[in-house]
């Protein structure tokens, strides 16, 4: 009986063993933290065990004696190794896996201060895009901004069309913008704008490199590491602050016909449209009312690159943008609001000390929950001199913001004296640069505020910004009107429009199973 059982057991083992040849076994995944480039690293062991296999003997055919085995049998040969998996933020290599991955990484050409990092993972933060061509503009304790960087890039990863057998980076950039806007020449249209830098560098090259760095991440040859220095005097060496801006333009009167987003032409919205860098690309004609428009091309480039890339990643295009975008309007009469996002935006755009009535138009576009692109930002040290760390965020939404600041310029009935009544009568400002004294009268540059309101009637002294503007509107008749001791005449109802960009971000830790990450594998040891 025992003998029979043993026979059955042996037979079944043999049959079972014959069914398997190679068995792959995975061990537990270990989280080993971050590398010096801001990627999250994991390690996992895997074993390949080949059992009960045979190999045909190639040489047997040539044996003279003919007694050699036709094949050789082995019971079990195995190899175990440790694979390091590095998870990096979204790049075009995540979408197009035929691309040369040496040109991609998770690092985006942006930096933030440590104050801007939310304290916990999955907390959200809204960051305003801010350009600082010179380091003196940089505010080390600014907790609500992110800044652009110029990082060197190998030409083959953004300019050169390589051979037809391999997908090249310029082709893919064309595809990304082509898919989003339905117009493959869209990308080249970008570079027709008149842009200047404070240096003599080739501005088109800087812009192409910057956009390429946003979409594909910094290339592997120029990755920032913890400790990388930020050059503030020399562009592209290898990491520096970026420096270019558009020559500002004054838009002439026109109508507000756009490819999408339909608003009545006389709507005040239309007058501010042109300052929204992203939206302005779709405006076929100029705004209805003439206004001074201050546009920064770098805002436009950042916005277009981020929206197109993030859209391409989740499979959305300009039609979806049109359907999903939410337009909000906020009229900020009370300039002394607490530190709300609106105030931060106004500070970022117009400066915190410049008090004026600001209207804010916000085109808000949300990406689908938890499937948007991820971006790794550099975190700089307190002096703004080197990269101290990296932080990764998921893009939840983009705000294309336009602010319209209204001011009223009054002329005092007096000799050589003119002043702007801006909007916060409690703020006493000195004459701005250019002021001088002539024959005992102080002459202030027309942008300077009224400095002394002590002789004014009480009703004017404490007027709120909005009330001043209403007063200006109703007294804009070219005559002098008394506000107390002095008479004033409305010279100009000034308007200034500016555009900006705000990103809604969620602090995350990159996970291997996240759809938005790119994984790199490396065999680090075998046993």
């Amino acid at each position, binding site marked *: 009986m025992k003998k029979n059982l043993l026979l059955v057991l042996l037979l079944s083992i043999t049959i079972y063993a*014959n*069914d*398997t*040849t*190679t*068995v*792959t*076994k*995975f061990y537990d995944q270990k989280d080993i933290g971050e590398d010096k480039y801001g990627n999250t690293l994991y390690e*996992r062991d*895997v074993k*390949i065990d*080949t059992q*009960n*296999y*045979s*190999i*045909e*003997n190639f*040489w*047997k*055919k*040539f*044996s*003279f*004696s003919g007694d*050699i*085995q*036709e*094949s*050789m*049998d*082995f019971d079990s*040969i*195995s*190899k*175990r*190794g440790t*694979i390091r*998996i590095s998870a990096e933020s979204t790049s075009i290599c995540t979408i197009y896996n035929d691309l040369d991955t040496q040109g991609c990484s998770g690092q985006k050409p942006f930096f933030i201060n440590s104050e801007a990092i939310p304290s916990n993972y999955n907390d959200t933060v809204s960051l305003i895009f801010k350009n600082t061509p010179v380091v003196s503009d940089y505010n080390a304790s600014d907790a609500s901004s992110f800044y652009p960087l110029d990082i060197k890039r190998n030409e083959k990863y953004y300019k050169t069309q390589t051979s037809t057998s391999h997908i090249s980076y310029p082709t893919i950039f064309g595809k990304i913008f082509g898919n989003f806007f339905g117009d493959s020449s869209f990308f080249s249209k970008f570079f027709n704008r008149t842009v200047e830098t404070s240096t003599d560098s080739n501005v088109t090259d800087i812009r192409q490199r910057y956009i390429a760095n946003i979409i594909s991440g910094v290339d592997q040859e120029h990755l920032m590491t913890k400790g990388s220095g930020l050059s503030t005097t020399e562009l592209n060496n290898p990491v520096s602050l970026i420096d270019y801006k558009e020559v500002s333009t004054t838009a002439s009167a026109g109508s507000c016909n756009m490819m999408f987003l339909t608003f009545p032409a006389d709507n005040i919205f239309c007058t501010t449209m042109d300052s929204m860098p992203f939206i302005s690309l779709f405006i076929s004609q100029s705004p209805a009312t003439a206004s001074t428009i201050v546009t920064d091309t770098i805002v436009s480039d950042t916005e277009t690159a981020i929206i197109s890339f993030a859209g391409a990643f989740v499979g959305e295009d300009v039609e979806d943008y049109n359907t999903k975008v939410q337009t909000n309007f906020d009229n900020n009469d009370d300039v002394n609001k607490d530190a709300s996002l609106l105030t931060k935006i106004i500070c970022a755009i117009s400066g915190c000390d410049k008090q004026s009535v600001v209207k804010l138009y916000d085109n808000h576009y949300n990406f689908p929950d938890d499937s948007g692109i991820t971006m790794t930002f550099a975190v700089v040290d307190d002096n703004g001199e080197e990269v101290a760390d990296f932080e990764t965020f998921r893009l939840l939404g983009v705000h294309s913001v336009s602010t319209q600041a209204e001011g009223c310029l009054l002329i005092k009935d007096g000799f050589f004296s003119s002043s702007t009544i801006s909007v916060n009568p409690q703020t006493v400002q000195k004459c701005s640069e250019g002021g001088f004294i002539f024959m005992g009268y102080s002459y202030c540059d027309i942008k300077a505020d009224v400095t002394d309101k002590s002789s004014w009637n009480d009703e004017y002294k404490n007027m709120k910004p909005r009330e001043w503007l209403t007063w200006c509107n109703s007294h804009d008749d070219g005559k002098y009107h008394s506000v107390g001791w002095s008479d004033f005449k409305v010279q100009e109802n000034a308007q200034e429009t500016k555009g900006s960009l705000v990103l809604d971000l969620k602090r995350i830790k990159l996970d*291997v*199973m996240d*759809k938005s990450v790119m*994984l790199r*594998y*490396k*065999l680090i040891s*075998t046993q």
Partner: protein
Amino acid sequence: MRSGSVAIVPLFLAIMLLFWFIAFMGGANDTLHSINNVKNLQYLQTKLLQSAMRYRYSLEKEAQESGKTLSESDLTKKVNIYINDIMELNGIQKKGNE
């Protein structure tokens, strides 16, 4: 012409050496082939470790995107088939299959 006929001698020698080598390998000791085969297989296995890992995560991600979840045994089964196929392509077969 004459120098050409002299030049053919090393060529003949080389061809003879090649024949001898093939015959030697054909009649060589089984152990020699066995060591060689084990080494080759281990090299192949080492190369496949990374592929196995890559394939596993791609399966897992694909499943996740289509809203499914694969159990550990499902995953291992699929990876086994994948690695097995590569093994067979490389002439590594089950015993008794030849």
